[in-house]
């Protein structure tokens, strides 16, 4: 009876050990990529096979003359690869090389990890560094969704006027008392009661609810739900546009995410000049296409002046807005005139098709609007006519804006159209630019603090608990490796400077698990248990206390993660993951290690003589 139970127990431990070893191996492999760093390589590719290959010495002397350090130059038949030792030199080296050698070589830069091939095959990624460690630029944008809603309602109010004229109804006034409602005053109660206009409005804007105020007054409102929906859509649209713009800037590692209700956080690692990025990101420009008004008496007309001072009268209703543009490229037309080729999405394509079929030979106006804050900190919209172009034929999802005055203008317009337009004005409420050198210093300091922290802890544990302390130390090392592995595995975890502090803190706290267990074992030994049974009892009984103590820290960690941003979030992640890994290594791994190293009842353990 006794024997069979023992066997079962052994089997169970074996199975458990295999799982533990498997998890640890997995974590170690995941943590490995962190040992290797990214290196930037500039490749010179021979354009012309006849041209002579430039020698490594030549490049080296050229770079050395300009005080640019490199790690390695490799030449093959067609390419020369230069591995940089300092990423910040990329621009300078590229500029130098293109000035000297661009005739026969094309220059391209690639970032490569120096990890061995087998590790790359496993698709392991090193931990992403936060801005405070990598250097770069941070923007937090405030999206004025209220203003966007107000603008949308202004558009609807103008539309209502046009609809009224179309259905021959006289309105005395259309007012916009706040940003989610429109009040329509009919000139007589009879016209209201006929209801033709109201049903027409219902058809065009089903999301607006209609309420009769009195005999000749109706109020159109966006319900609370619709307002929320509109704000969410505006945020999604703005996020999309921002991502598009950053892509246009050629920044691939950028993090663009929503922060809170109406903020967007943009992190651009490796960017050193915030002004360039700011110009494109902060441009609160939007593009709209209008039709020139034929009938000068029609209601809902916008008047604008173009570059030549000519007055234009346009139908207030937008044919379509820049948000429907999928792609835009500048080019040259048949007559050598610069133009912009546009590709629209499905919705825009349909709108354009309907509109152009009816309006061949008529002009269409492109209007560029921009928001800025005036002296009194009030958001002001400024619009200008970019061009007036004639619709040549029935257009679909692809067409061109001709009549551009210069190739430069065509290029700029194409870029802005590609990047997408914004429906809501944005302002930068937070900006930070961290130099790469500060980031490197932060990493060095962090690693120094970490190694000293670990050193003290390891020495203390060994001195205090001797053989069991050694086990705790192995568990501690495995804890650190597991934590690094877990962080590399989980997408969205970023290592920041407070994160490194969290790492150091985790090391200090991780021994707690083992201290609790060892003190428990000591207590059991003092009560007269044999070594093996005291160990078994100690591990099993300390677990509920360990769980209780860790759960509360976990709760605070999760709250911190939920409300914090950036560096603080980085701290919270490590705090939470550190609790998980320290419980795993402190309880399960160290128990397996203890069982492995202490197999028989000794006469002395933890200073307690038996």
């Amino acid at each position, binding site marked *: 009876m006794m024997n069979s139970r023992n066997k079962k127990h052994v089997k169970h431990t074996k199975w458990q050990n295999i799982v533990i070893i498997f998890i640890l191996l997995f974590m170690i492999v995941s943590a490995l990529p962190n040992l290797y760093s990214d290196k930037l390589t500039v490749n010179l590719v021979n354009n012309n096979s006849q041209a002579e290959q430039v020698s490594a010495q030549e490049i080296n002397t050229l770079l050395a003359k300009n005080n640019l350090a490199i790690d390695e130059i490799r030449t093959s038949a067609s390419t020369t690869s230069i591995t940089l030792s300092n990423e910040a030199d990329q621009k300078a080296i590229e500029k130098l090389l293109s000035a000297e050698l661009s005739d026969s070589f094309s220059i391209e830069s690639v970032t490569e990890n120096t990890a061995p091939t087998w590790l790359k095959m496993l698709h392991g990624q090193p931990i992403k560094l936060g801005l405070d460690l990598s250097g770069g630029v941070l923007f937090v944008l405030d999206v004025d969704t209220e203003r966007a809603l107000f603008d949308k309602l202004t558009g609807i109010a103008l539309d209502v006027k046009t609809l009224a004229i179309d259905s021959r109804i006289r309105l005395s006034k259309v007012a916009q008392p706040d940003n989610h409602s429109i009040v329509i005053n009919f000139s007589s109660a009879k016209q209201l009661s006929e209801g033709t206009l109201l049903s027409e409005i219902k058809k065009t804007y089903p999301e607006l609810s209609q309420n009769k105020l009195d005999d000749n007054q109706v109020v159109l409102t966006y319900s609370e739900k619709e307002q929320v929906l509109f704000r969410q859509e505006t945020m999604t649209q703005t996020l999309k546009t921002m991502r598009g713009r950053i892509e246009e800037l050629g920044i691939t590692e950028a993090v663009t995410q929503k922060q809170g209700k109406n903020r967007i956080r943009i992190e651009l690692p490796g960017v050193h000049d915030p002004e360039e990025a700011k110009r494109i990101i902060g441009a609160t420009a939007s593009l709209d296409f209008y039709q020139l008004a034929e009938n000068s008496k029609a209601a809902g007309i916008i008047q604008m002046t173009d570059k030549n001072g000519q007055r234009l009268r346009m139908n207030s209703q937008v044919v379509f807005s820049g948000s429907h543009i999928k792609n835009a490229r500048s080019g040259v037309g048949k007559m050598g005139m610069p133009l912009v080729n546009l590709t629209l999405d499905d919705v825009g394509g349909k709108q354009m098709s309907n509109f152009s079929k009816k309006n061949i030979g008529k002009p269409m106006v492109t209007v560029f609007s921009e928001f800025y804050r005036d002296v009194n900190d009030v958001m002001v919209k400024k619009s200008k006519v970019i061009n007036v172009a004639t619709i040549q034929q029935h257009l679909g999802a692809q067409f061109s804006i001709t009549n551009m005055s210069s190739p430069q203008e065509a290029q700029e317009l194409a870029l802005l159209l590609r990047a997408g337009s914004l429906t809501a004005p944005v302002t930068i409420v937070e900006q930070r630019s961290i130099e790469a050198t500060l980031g490197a210093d932060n990493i060095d300091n962090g690693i120094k603090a970490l190694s000293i922290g670990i050193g003290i802890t390891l020495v203390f544990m060994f001195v205090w608990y001797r053989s069991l302390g050694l086990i705790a130390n192995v568990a501690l090392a495995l804890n650190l490796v597991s934590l690094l592995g877990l962080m590399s595995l989980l997408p969205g975890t970023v290592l920041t400077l407070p994160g490194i*502090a969290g790492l150091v803190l985790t090391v200090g706290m991780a021994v707690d698990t083992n*201290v609790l267990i060892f003190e428990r074992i000591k207590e059991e030994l003092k009560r007269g248990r044999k070594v093996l049974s005291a160990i078994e009892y100690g591990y099993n009984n300390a677990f509920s206390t360990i769980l209780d103590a860790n759960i509360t820290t976990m709760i605070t960690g999760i709250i911190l993660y939920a409300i914090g941003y950036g560096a603080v979030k980085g*701290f919270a992640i490590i*705090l939470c993951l550190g609790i998980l890994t320290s419980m795993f290594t402190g309880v399960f791994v160290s128990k397996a290690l203890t069982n492995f190293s202490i197999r028989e009842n000794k006469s002395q353990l933890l200073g307690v003589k038996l």
Partner: protein
Amino acid sequence: MNNFLLNQTETLSKFRVISLYFAAALVIFSLTGVLSKGLNLGLDFTGGYLTEFTTQESVNKADMETLLTDYLPDTFGLASAENGTHWSVQQADNDISLKGKSWLTDFSQQSGLNITPQDSIYIGSQVGDELIDQGGLALITAVIVILLYLSFRFEWRLAAGSVIALCHDVIVVLGLFAWLGIKFDLTIVASLLAIIGYSLNDSIIVGDKIREIMKRNSGASIENIVNLAIKSTIVRTLITSGTTLATILAIWIFAGESLSGFAISLFTGILIGTFSSITISATVPQLIGLSADYYNKQEEEVCALP
């Protein structure tokens, strides 16, 4: 031997009661600081501009201040570190500050000081206001959730003891920041939450022990139970706090200027937390009437621990 043990227990009881008065005095002292002097809120909460740069040679602070006055239109705050080679300039978020935006480029070109820019931050003032709300909300949420968890897991008097202890810890750290005028920024809020976590950690270990002893209790008084629990956990508490404090000291000394506030907060928080877990979280339940045979009476109702 028995007599000696009894004496020791009596001393511990006296120590606990005296410490409780001391803790109360500390809280009052800290609150006075927070209310009279207020916290020296950092850029995260006030909004504004912060520019950090280094100079190759060390410069006298007064000299730097006169040098900068020519370039900065508005009033500014200046702080130096690392023997006058690391500088940070703080300006308010308003139009005047905005006008002198390119001052650092001009300054580094004209002063001949060999200046390297390190970090430049702009935070809008509305962001700061929101952060104050968010930070406060986070602290309060943390306390409430923990109170709920503890009352579910422990007897309510033990839970109350732990929560009073953690409030004490947070208030004392806030008081320290107010009295010494150390910059209070977002990382400090993060450290306060970490302190809450760790302070509870200690309190829970003691609470767990009290519960355990109460369960196998054979007629000892509540005072003796509490003293016994403290004595059998004191080694563990001191070791864990010791290693944690050592690692925080490493952060404080080596991790650089930007984490020093964070390290100061954690260091004092954990030091105070260790003290309060012994004196407050174990003593308060006894004072508000935790009875020694609570767990024996409730045996059938309370779930046994695994």
